[in-house]
């Protein structure tokens, strides 16, 4: 038996990418081998795109809108350049680079295009989703939307959704006349359709469907749902995996039903209009969220633009409530994640634009989940009160057969200096790899000393230090997969790694926070990732009765905490953040007896906060709430704070439709039962929303068939 190979630290100056997220940097450099393997498996499709986003800026003001000249019967008719609304989409440049097979070329393009104002994102899209010849001229026709019969400016509200796997043609999103309440749907990894010559494309990549087109497809399919899915490109088995809308349960369909679903014969639902964006499936598959950035930013921009199309069609600003049931575990916090900053800027731009169009003002807001990582053992923290060195030591258990990289983010105060990181492989003495001092802009790579392997393929970890995000410094640790089909490639050993970080803290606010990024396999995807966790012997998992302990003990030991597990995209002050609760127990049992919040629902650490909790499970035994399955006429159970968010969105949309202009948080707080959160404030905010009257019993797994 041979001894474990040794490990050595090396500087990696050739692989610095200011402006590129560290996960993306890893994927682009030493992680590319593994993604090349993925490519062969067909799981990531054709990963071919690097995109650059100019740091978000406000769109310029424009002229008054002109009346629509388009017929709703020809929604796909070319939009003439004259009808363009004068808005510019976010400044995004597509830099096609064969990332999977030629990272060097992608790197060259990034370096050639780099400016201080640009950020870069990998955008894994199949070639068929991309316009030939780079970024198309993009823009929407003015007021291309004509209200369907029965839809009035009074009482209309737009529910936006950014999700994956949304069956936009589901009967729950149809209207009594056989039309679609989904007025616009952008499928980001749909097949790109070039605009007519001389006109602009409504979307920079992927496919947009409009309400009349969806309605026509439904009519043409004549009840054959297979034919409908084919017509809308929702399922196509001639393409590689994944095919999330081929499964009985799909995330986006379920969530959108809870937010805006209704019986198709319900005339009251007619004024709830829907604008949806389906993220590429691979973005969901990369559960770290690292591929989400630009796709989400462009998705929200699209929803707000189309909300302006609808507003223009109705002659007045229409309220928008956006559902975004996604969570990440790390992030700079304090509302500083690039996605969070873009949300605020896009909403501000939306308001300015509506005013400039002479349409007045209407509330526009987004709701996000608190996250499901309360018990994931993925967050650790330590703090000090005075200047001096502070160390956070983390027993990091990395699972065998993990075919995706594992990532840890460590966040330090802006004034932290003298950063040293130790990363010790399982079974090695602490001195075997040693610690390494980390400087900004000089990543360190850990090589496995395996003489038979090409040295370029022996990198099993990458460390970097950056201050890209405002207010804090980040140390990022990427660890190679522990299993792979890549030949001639070093793999990280599985087992208990020891990760430690020491830095000199400033006089105040000395703190080190660590988050493991999500790394598991979402339902409906081929199993690849396995989640690592902090295996701290001092962490108490169970209470005295043997039940899961879902709040931190009064005097917790060790460094692993539940408090601080809030979704990293939910940290902007005032953001609507929705936790989950077991609504049967909440309804039927007193707080002292029941376990009201769902045990997985994250615990916020002040100043972060949860706005409110909504039903995410029936009870301890009956997990999940019932809503639409993928196909029309089917209903399935799904749980998580993902399904709580749309129930809050439904209440907000209802209030906005009646002209309520108060804060979303106040509207939700007023709808809670039991007056307050009864000690669960960090997980349920102002309290517990009961099941929505339209959904009561409908979502309950107890009362099926009753």
């Amino acid at each position: 038996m041979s001894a474990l190979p040794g490990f050595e630290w090396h500087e990696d100056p050739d692989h610095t990418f200011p402006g590129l997220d560290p996960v993306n940097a890893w994927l682009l450099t030493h992680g590319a081998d593994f993604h090349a393997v993925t490519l062969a498996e067909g799981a990531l499709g054709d990963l071919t795109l690097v995109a650059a986003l100019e740091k978000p800026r406000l769109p310029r003001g424009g002229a008054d809108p002109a009346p629509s000249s388009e017929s709703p019967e020809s929604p796909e008719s070319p939009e003439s350049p004259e009808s363009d609304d004068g808005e510019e989409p976010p400044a995004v440049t597509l830099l096609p680079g064969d990332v999977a097979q030629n990272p060097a070329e992608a790197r060259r393009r990034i370096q050639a295009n780099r400016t201080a104002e640009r950020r870069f994102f990998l955008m894994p899209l199949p070639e068929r989703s991309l316009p030939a010849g780079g970024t198309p001229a993009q823009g929407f026709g003015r007021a291309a939307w004509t209200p369907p019969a029965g839809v009035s400016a009074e009482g209309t509200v737009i529910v936006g959704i950014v999700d994956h796997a949304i069956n936009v043609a589901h009967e729950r999103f149809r209207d009594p006349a056989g039309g679609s309440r989904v007025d616009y749907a952008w499928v980001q990894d749909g097949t790109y359709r070039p605009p007519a010559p001389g006109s602009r494309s409504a979307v920079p990549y992927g496919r947009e469907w409009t309400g009349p087109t969806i309605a026509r497809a439904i009519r043409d399919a004549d009840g054959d749902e297979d034919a409908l899915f084919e017509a809308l490109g929702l399922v196509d088995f001639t393409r590689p995996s994944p095919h999330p809308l081929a499964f009985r349960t799909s995330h986006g369909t379920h969530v959108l039903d809870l937010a805006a679903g209704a019986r198709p014969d319900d005339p009251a639902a007619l004024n709830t209009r829907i604008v949806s964006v389906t993220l590429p499936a691979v973005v969901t598959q990369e559960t770290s969220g690292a591929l989400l950035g630009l796709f989400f930013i462009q998705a929200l921009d699209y929803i707000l633009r189309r909300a302006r199309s609808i507003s223009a069609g109705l002659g007045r600003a229409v309220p928008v409530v956006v559902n975004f049931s996604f969570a990440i575990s790390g992030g700079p916090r304090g509302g500083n994640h690039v996605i969070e900053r873009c949300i605020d800027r896009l909403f501000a731009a939306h308001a300015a634009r509506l005013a400039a169009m002479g349409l007045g003002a209407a509330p526009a807001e987004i709701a996000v989940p608190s996250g499901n990582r309360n018990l994931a053992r993925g967050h650790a923290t330590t703090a000090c009160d005075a200047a001096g060195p502070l160390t956070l030591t983390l027993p990091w258990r990395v699972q065998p057969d993990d075919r995706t990289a594992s990532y840890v983010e460590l966040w330090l105060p802006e004034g932290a200096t003298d950063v040293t990181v130790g990363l010790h492989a399982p079974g090695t003495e602490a001195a075997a790899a040693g610690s390494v001092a980390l400087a900004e802009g000089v990543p360190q790579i850990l090589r496995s000393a395996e003489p038979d392997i090409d040295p370029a393929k022996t990198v099993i970890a990458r460390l970097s230090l950056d201050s890209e995000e405002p207010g804090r410094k980040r140390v990022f640790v990427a660890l190679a997969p522990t299993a792979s089909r890549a030949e001639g490639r070093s793999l990280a050993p599985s087992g208990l790694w020891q990760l430690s970080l020491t830095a000199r803290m400033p006089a105040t606010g000395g703190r080190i926070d660590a988050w493991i990024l999500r790394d598991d396999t979402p339902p409906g995807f081929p199993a690849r990732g396995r989640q690592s966790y902090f295996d701290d012997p001092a962490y108490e998992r169970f209470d005295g009765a043997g039940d899961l302990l879902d709040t931190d003990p009064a005097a917790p030991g060790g460094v692993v905490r539940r408090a601080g597990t809030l979704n990293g995209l939910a940290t902007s002050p005032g953001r609507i953040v929705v936790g989950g609760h077991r609504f049967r127990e909440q309804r039927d049992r007193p707080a002292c007896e029941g376990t009201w919040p769902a045990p997985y629902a994250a615990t916020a650490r002040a100043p972060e906060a949860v706005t409110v909790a909504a039903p995410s499970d029936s009870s301890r035994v009956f997990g999940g709430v019932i809503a639409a399955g993928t196909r029309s006429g089917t209903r399935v159970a799904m749980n998580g704070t993902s399904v709580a968010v749309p129930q809050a969105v439904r209440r907000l949309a209802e209030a906005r439709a009646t002209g309520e202009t108060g804060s979303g948080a106040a509207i939700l707080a007023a709808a809670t039962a039991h007056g307050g959160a009864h000690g669960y404030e960090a997980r349920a905010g102002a309290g517990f929303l009961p099941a929505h009257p339209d959904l009561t019993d409908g979502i309950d797994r107890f009362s099926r068939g009753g």
Partner: protein
Amino acid sequence: MSIASITSAAQGAQGAQGAQGAQGAQGAQGAQGAQGAQGAQGAQGAQGAQGAGGGADGMLAVALITARDGIVGPWQSAPGMAPLTGNSAANMVRWPASVRRIVLQNELVSRIGFAPAEAGGPRGTEPAIRMFHLAVAPGTPVPTAVYRPFVEMIRPTTADFEAQLQVVHNYADLRPDRASEILKQLPGPMAFFANILTVDGERTRHTVELSILAQTFAAHVAQQTKHALACLRPDMRSPQIQPMIDTPGHGALPSGHATEAFMLAALLGRLIDPARENAPLWQMLMAQAARIATNRVVAGVHYPADSFAGASLGLALADYMAARAGAGLDTVSGLRFDGRGLGNTDFRGGHVFAQFARKAFAAGSGSDALAIVEIDTALPIGADDISKPLQWLWNRAAKEWQAPEEETA
């Protein structure tokens, strides 16, 4: 006869009674023999000699012998039952279902024939098989018989199968979602139509009988075609397909499950809703058939091409069987399946059936379109082509889906 001899006879009878112990032992042996007979019945399989079960019971046989001795008395003349008309379908009601099935299978199978063929031309050279209907007219000393073309099936090219193979690979994603269906559909599709129709072994037993006959006939034609076209299964082309069930030993195209499922869907639809007014019924039957076909692709034992071939064949056979059963079709549209050039086209039910009718399908579009499924050359079905025994079963089954008639006293 003296009193003594009478007494002696009585004694003799007593002696015989004494011997009954030995006879009893023989009876036990007889019972063993009867068990052997039951074994033979078992070998006859599902032909259902169960109805005669009592007759094969050795103990019962002995009992029946002694019972007859006890009551038979001297010979008497009795009127009995009127003789049966020969060559009459009306007699079908008298035969056990097991016997009817043999008769009916022959009614179908004896009137079809197959001929090997080869397709050439720009789409490539591939083996083909042609299927004929044997039109028989009465004649002396032998009937006159002539083959009429009905079906032609041409094998896809190797390039087509390789393109299809990737689709099979892609479908493997759905195995966890579909595993229970795939496993429960192994024996056949009937349970998945029965739950749409409320088929019941008692109340709709002739429908069940007709369905079994249809499946058997579909399997017969499918196996001939599989044998002729000799298509390799997906797992023989790639070590990564790794089907989740055993790959059957016969060829891939056409899919037997697709052939049987679509045949049943179309046949049951026509039986139950001959006026074609119940669109949701047809829609459910066809959607179920398509799902059964696709489940075999998910399992990794078939290509979508096999579903195309099987579905179009099953639908054609349903028309054929209904016509032969006298269900009111003067002609049956023929079928030409030409798999050459199918490429990676995926299957769905709507490609081969819509608006209550079989449908042609072409791969690609415009000038590049290649006809894959063609509905052509109408096969005439005349009075001589209608099978009276089959018609008997069809009518019986059809009545099971109609409101019962009032029985007059």
